[in-house]
């Protein structure tokens, strides 16, 4: 097991290095560097000013030299300064990360909980299955920006019960969490229904029923652990979303999270911020996948 973990961690390190270079290359090759944008915004900038600013920002250096300088600084723990927000990158990343973790963590937890419950309902009560399937279909089909605006109009504008957006206490979380939870519900519900239906038809479930075990015990102790493997895969993939944020929901509800931060950084050509944020997302996704693999092996030793 330790060998597996060590080998996977090494893979993650190599992948992260390759990813960082690819991301750097892609951002650098995007049209319009910060000085081009500055020239477009200030007609009084002369050719000499442009050259001076390029040198000041290090943009006159070859691409590889710029990448190596950035990577070297990151390895030493110097993450640089955000050009867009005039703040150290780490100072911007942490609040955004925490905000996204709070929003998406809660939304995904609720989505998984409700989704699995609906899946179990569909598996245990076949008459309820069409309802669950329809609900899952609607949840998957409804665009989150539309649902978000609808919820704002109803609960914030018309009824005035909840804030329309921004950050504050728990009340500010309800509408964005509900929006994201509904959008993520479908995958858990459909996968849980399929996996539990299959698990409930296994011979050992019939044996348990024959031995007189109650339905709750059968579901929780026998069926769910067997159905957990595909659900863990979805959860692992969702872990990346926890730190990559939800751009549309964050924009609609005016919450400064990772999705908005990454979007602004890429569009604003903020190298330091975009690269570090993308790297954090990639590393967390890979670590979550590793954790899911280990959990799957623990749940089903045949996978080892």
């Amino acid at each position, binding site marked *: 097991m330790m060998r597996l973990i060590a080998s996977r961690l090494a893979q993650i390190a190599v992948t992260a290095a390759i990813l960082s270079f690819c991301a750097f290359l892609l951002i650098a090759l995007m049209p319009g560097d910060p000085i081009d944008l500055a020239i477009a915004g200030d007609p009084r900038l002369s050719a000499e*000013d442009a050259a001076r600013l390029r040198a*000041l920002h290090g943009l006159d250096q070859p691409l590889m030299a710029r990448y190596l300088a950035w990577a070297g600084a990151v390895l030493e723990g110097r993450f640089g300064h955000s050009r867009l927000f005039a703040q150290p990158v780490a100072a911007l990343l942490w609040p955004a990360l925490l905000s996204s973790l709070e929003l998406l963590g809660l939304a995904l937890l609720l989505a998984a909980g409700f989704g699995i419950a609906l899946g179990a309902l569909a598996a245990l009560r076949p008459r309820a299955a069409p309802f669950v399937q329809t609900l899952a279909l609607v949840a998957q089909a409804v665009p989150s920006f539309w649902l978000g*605006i609808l919820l704002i109009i109803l609960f914030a504008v018309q009824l005035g019960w909840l804030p329309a957006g921004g950050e504050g206490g728990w009340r500010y979380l309800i509408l964005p969490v509900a929006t994201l939870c509904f959008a993520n519900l479908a995958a858990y519900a459909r996968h849980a229904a399929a996996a539990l239906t299959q698990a409930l038809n296994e011979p050992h479930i019939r044996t348990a029923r024959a031995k007189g075990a109650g339905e709750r015990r059968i579901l929780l102790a026998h069926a769910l652990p067997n159905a957990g493997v595909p659900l863990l895969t979805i959860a692992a993939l969702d872990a990346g979303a926890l730190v990559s944020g939800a751009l549309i929901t964050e924009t609609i509800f005016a919450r400064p999270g990772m999705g908005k*931060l990454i979007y602004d950084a890429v569009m604003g050509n903020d190298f330091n911020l975009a690269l570090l944020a993308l790297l954090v997302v990639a590393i967390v996704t890979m670590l979550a996948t590793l954790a899911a693999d280990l959990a799957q092996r623990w749940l089903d030793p045949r996978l080892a």
Partner: protein
Amino acid sequence: MIRLLVALLLLALPALAQPQRDTLTIGITQYPSTLHPNIENMVAKSYTLGFVRRPITAYDADWQLICLLCETIPTLENGLAVRETTPDGKDGLRVTWRLREGLRWGDGTPITTADLRLTYDAGREGTTGIGPAEFFRSAYEFIAEDARSFTLRFDRVTFQFASLGDFAPLPAHLERARWESDPRTYRTRTLYDTEPTNPGLWNGPYRITQVQAGSAITLERNPHWSGAAPAFRRIVLRTVESTPALEAQLLAGQVDMIAGELGLPVEQATALIRRTGQRFRAEYRPGLIYEHLDLNLDVPALADRRVRQALLLALDRGQIVARLFEGRQTVAQTSVNPLDWPHDANVRSYPHDPARAATLLTEAGWTPGPDGIRRNAEGQRLSFELMTTAGNRSREAVQQVIQAQWRQVGVEARIRNEPPRVLFGETLSRRRFQGAALFAWVSAPESVPRSSLHSDEIPRAERNWSGQNYAGFRNAEMDALLEALPQELDREKRRVLWHRLQAIYADELPALPLWFRQDAHLWPAWLEGVRPTGHLNPSSLWVEAWRVR
């Protein structure tokens, strides 16, 4: 006893019903990338800083240059501006300003010429990278006459010599040591961005007390402000980038007003006012945002002036403004705004005239082809690209109408849009557009359009792609006017030059004028005293006049 309680309750009810309005929450759609007054120009920063710091001079709501921190606007007549010869033997100016008495930073430290000396030193030092570069190139000497008076010597004569809008004092007692320790990295170490709640950074009616990066900035009254006391104890500037979300927050009462400088598009604001009745008030202020179509004059068809004139005649701009913007844009004839004093009301205009447009195109050798699109003698179709910023819904709608109206006179416009960063950062600045590009210029009152019309300002690689003459317009008389205009100090003589400039513009059409955009300012019915300016000096510079009705 019960009667007494009921009576007291009845007396208290009106007070309970009247909310205490000591906080004003303003919604804006952009967050400032820096709070340093001399680093980067952006509307969000100007608007925010308008509450917390004052420039020495500014243009007011009547577009007149006024003193905010100084006592008198320098003129040749009052002797505060004097013509002189520079040490290099050029014509120059020596201009003196005097700071008002009693000015203090938010920590109580007096504002003196030492603060302006820091601004000057940092601006002149090239490695610091703070602007405005052209100003600091021209101002070759700073002289502190005493604690309140200072003189700048310029190596050129320009009619805008009295304006110091971009030359803002920096608190030397806080920033000089930081700047001197390493001018090259000062941008990342300035207190304006590392400790923006330091009261000593601000000299306006308010100071910044809380910053939530990317989402909100809280301001509270500055106890050391020497001017009229502002009405609100606290102002919160909340950034909501999505305009539907911003509208929802206004309706839900989370924001009290939406700043017109960074707010809702005119059409959205108009619809909102229609729906909400008397709850909000809207003011539509015509401004200096000039929407136009830049034409690449290196495209052979567009190099012909008759084709450009035909393209403008084919457009029904009045109808577009009426239908898409509820009539709330000012149709432009040239790049000079009708509200700006140099505007020539008699300049040639192009009312919608498709028949005249067709005649001009035929004269230029473009005759209708079998598919309705005109062709020249070589059989080439009159077809070119029509670009704008992708995602800008109102421009995309305008683009569709333009395409349809040109089609009616036999011109094919092929729509190809790009994100703003690509369009401005690459396609326009490197002149890679093959036809027309719809976008806007933002300027100041009486702003000489040298960068967009002078032939020296055509972007090219050897000039590091600087310059904004994207059209590639070359006209010797226009070049001469653009050089003569800034140096002409006599207003009436300048008026003649401006009129000639507009006449050339209207004849040659280096760009097709569309309209001047209006900002939609939305306030609650209980707020009064806000005066939008329509130019780059925001309404927040006069916040002490804002009152609860």
